[in-house]
């Protein structure tokens, strides 16, 4: 396949990956890696490198908008970034020793798990109680809503912190943002309102990905010829996605379409991983 054909296919594929990733909140990486490895037969290390770069672009781009709105809890994000960057560092180191077919299987499993999480209905929850650690670290906060400010507290900091280490390892090992795992840590374990957990998770994804990207960059995983169409395509797709999201009232059918796509892709990744094709 010539450079020009490869670039055009990858640009289009990445655009749709970014679009779907932004509409469903799963992120573009989950489609980019199967696209590169299964369809274009690119080595999984190159795929992880390119995906990681696109993750930084989309999360930084959207975090810029959220931070200005004042919903993102910067202190909480900063504190949990200790966990995610330490995890990402570990993940990038593990990636040298873990066989590629195992990475493919793990990718499939995490992908299914993330799809299930994204389909779940999330009810708004606000905890007003403050734990000792949350008070000490001043993790609670407030966010603007209906002209006022909603105050919230943060529970089970230790549990959330450990989940974030795990999210970081997965992000570093698989080259994805692992937004779904970060959301589990924040709204499932730490009981943070989902508006805050979604934006704060997004805020952390860029730094987490950067912590493993610095390793991959030096190891030659980030190839300019592959990363170029991926990062441009995913970012443009994500921008389109955020525009559409404002105009559609219900994206429920779309999430189901995505769930089906994701299931097929994860089964393919697991199957090819077991067969040793990846």
């Amino acid at each position, binding site marked *: 396949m*010539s450079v020009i054909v490869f670039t055009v296919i990858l640009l289009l594929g990445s655009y749709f990956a970014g679009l779907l990733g932004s509409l469903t909140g799963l992120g573009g990486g989950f489609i980019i890696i199967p696209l590169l490895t299964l369809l274009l037969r690119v080595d999984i290390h190159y795929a992880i490198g390119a995906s990681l770069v696109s993750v930084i672009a989309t999360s930084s781009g959207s975090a810029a908008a959220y931070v200005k709105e004042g919903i993102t809890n*910067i202190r909480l994000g900063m504190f949990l970034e200790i966990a995610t960057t330490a995890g990402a560092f570990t993940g990038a180191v593990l990636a040298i020793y873990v066989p590629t077919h195992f990475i493919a299987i793990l990718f499939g499993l995490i992908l299914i798990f993330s799809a299930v999480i994204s389909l779940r209905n999330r009810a708004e929850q606000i905890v007003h109680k403050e734990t000792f650690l949350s008070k000490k670290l001043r993790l609670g906060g407030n966010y603007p809503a209906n002209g006022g400010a909603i105050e919230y507290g943060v529970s089970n900091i230790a549990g959330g912190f450990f989940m974030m280490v795990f999210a970081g390892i997965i992000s570093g090992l698989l080259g994805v943002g692992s937004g779904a795992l970060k959301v589990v840590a924040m709204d499932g374990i730490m009981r943070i309102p989902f508006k805050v957990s979604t934006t704060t998770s997004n805020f952390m994804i860029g730094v987490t990905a950067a912590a493993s990207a*610095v390793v991959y960059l030096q190891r030659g995983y980030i190839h300019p010829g592959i990363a170029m169409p991926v990062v441009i395509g995913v970012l443009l797709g994500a921008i389109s996605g955020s525009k559409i999201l404002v105009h559609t009232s219900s994206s429920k059918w779309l999430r189901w379409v995505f769930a089906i796509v994701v299931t097929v892709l994860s089964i393919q990744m697991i199957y090819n991983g077991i067969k040793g094709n990846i």
Partner: protein
Amino acid sequence: MESKETYNSPIPLEENQQKGKSSLKDKDIQVIIGWILRGGVAVSMILVFIGGVFFVYRHGYSMPDYKTFKGIPFFVQNIGGILNGVIMLKGQAIIQLGIILLIATPVIRVAFSAVAFLMEKDYLYTVITLIVLLIIIASMISGNAG
């Protein structure tokens, strides 16, 4: 209407605003962080795009082999080589410079946060932010060694 006393609010709004009696307020920090992230992504994307145009124009019909992992071309392996390539308008070098800037964007955000927390006299969070920065630096050094 619920009165304010019915729950125990974590950080009262007033306190959050008072904290900004020094030169830098939380709100300003949010605006600057937004600006760093947006600017970093915009500049790096422009570089990646320009590099991509050069790369596809020059090598559009060559057949790359990405099936087996062989690392990256020699001239983009270190920053000296990349800068040299940028001067010679090599597409892949310009793309790689854009990518390095993109990866640096969130790291610059963290470094700025450390300074901002220090100016706010929030020493606890200055330390927390420096720990994050140290982990990223450690990661960078380990990658260099491996």
